[in-house]
């Protein structure tokens, strides 16, 4: 029995550890030997109420390569939402035309609500600052693929740890493994207390730092995120810290052989361009992994494996 069949994916917590590992195994199988047109005759609706080129193209590529059809819109301006249609009405209508809905929306909780009103499964491709579970799954896949395991790793998370939803979801998912976390961020963007409490309850070790130049040699994974100017109430504070959270090539000198640099992208300037040539840079492969992982998620939910 495929417990993922017809299941919606709204939050990473909707999937058990077992289900997550099954997705990762399926993605790995798809990467090694493409499964062919297993989505033939399936129609997937991609409703991007908020634009996101990267995620949308990754979903489209995933579906197209498996022979499925994809329809939808890339921004709310070209949908009936611009005429004032409610989310519920849009979802109920579109569910008539498709086997599965992928949606991104700027309103938090919109994907959960959509999954409750929709007769077909819903995959959340990002709901405001809340959840982006397919990103978390592709991050997990990238970590497992490069490290051979998810267990016992030293994970460095760098940059905006306060608002970064990818950081929060990844942290929750990795807390099921024997992870050590190192959080590196400016004071204004520290990891929220609720996540620290969560880790303490689970007995997971974590450390907080202002800088990572000295300690990066211990990392297995460095997960970089963007520090955005608009997150700072005081622009001077931003100017003071903006260069501390930039990864430069010379910082990789003493790092472990197995360390890999991840980034959910888009990158602005938090990873120097010259890092791209290092075999330790992994962010573009990470984006490619998103295609296999999304293929695995969609095929599992549509039960065509």
């Amino acid at each position, binding site marked *: 029995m495929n417990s993922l069949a017809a299941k919606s994916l709204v*939050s990473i917590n909707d999937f058990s550890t077992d289900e997550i590992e099954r997705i990762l195994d399926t993605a790995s199988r798809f990467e090694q030997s493409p499964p062919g047109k297993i989505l033939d005759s399936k129609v997937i609706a991609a409703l991007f109420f908020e634009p996101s080129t990267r995620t949308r193209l990754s979903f489209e590529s995933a579906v197209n390569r498996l022979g499925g059809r994809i329809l939808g819109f890339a921004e709310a301006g070209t949908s009936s939402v611009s005429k004032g249609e*409610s*989310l*519920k009405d849009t979802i109920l209508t579109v569910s008539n035309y498709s086997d599965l809905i992928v949606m991104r929306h*700027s*309103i*938090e*909780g*919109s994907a*959960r*609500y959509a999954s409750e009103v929709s007769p077909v499964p819903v995959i959340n491709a990002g*709901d*405001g*600052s*809340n*959840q982006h579970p397919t990103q978390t799954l592709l991050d997990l896949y990238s970590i497992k693929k490069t490290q051979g395991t998810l267990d016992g790793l030293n994970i460095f998370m760098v940059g905006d740890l306060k608002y970064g939803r990818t950081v929060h979801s990844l942290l929750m998912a990795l807390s099921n493994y024997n992870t050590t976390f190192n959080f590196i961020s400016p004071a204004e963007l520290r990891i929220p207390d*609720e996540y620290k409490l969560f880790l303490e309850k689970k007995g997971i070790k974590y450390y907080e730092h202002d800088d990572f130049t000295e300690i990066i040699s211990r990392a297995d994974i460095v997960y970089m995120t963007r520090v955005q100017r608009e997150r700072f109430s005081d622009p001077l504070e931003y100017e003071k810290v903006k260069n501390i959270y930039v990864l430069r090539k010379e910082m990789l000198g003493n790092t472990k052989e197995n360390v890999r640099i991840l980034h959910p992208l888009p990158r602005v300037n938090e990873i120097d361009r010259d890092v791209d040539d290092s075999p330790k840079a992994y962010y573009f492969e990470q984006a490619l992994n998103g295609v296999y992982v999304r293929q695995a998620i969609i095929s599992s939910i549509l039960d065509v494996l």
Partner: protein
Amino acid sequence: MEKAKQLSVSAIKNGTVIDHIPADSLFTVITILGLEHISNQITFGTNLESKKFGKKAIIKVSAVYFTEEEINKIALVAPAARLNIIRNYEVVEKHELTLPDEIEGIARCFNPTCITNHEPVKTRFSIISQKPLRLKCHYCEKITDEEHLTII
């Protein structure tokens, strides 16, 4: 000296008594139950002596028996309150208030960009802590605390 034995707020024949309300929560309880809009006889007293709170308030409502949803609302704002059901001047049932693990439709999510504040969606929270009060929104997953709590 004869002990003064007089009810500060007169008895009711049938209805509900909400006792042990912290004095500063009295008007909140009145508002969330919409008592100012009903025509039944209501008596209340506040700043009465209480061993538990120092000052307590009490509300007596004639011929009204509250629904579970209304009782949950009281539990949210005055968790230490007690509910007594009165029939023919006698207390026939006593209830201590307990919050369920989940509440529906009685509190507003504090997050302005939560779907429940944009579409007609019934709010839903899991109670992750009673003291201090922390409600986790089923939709946006953000935490509403006591300071930001609004009862619908």
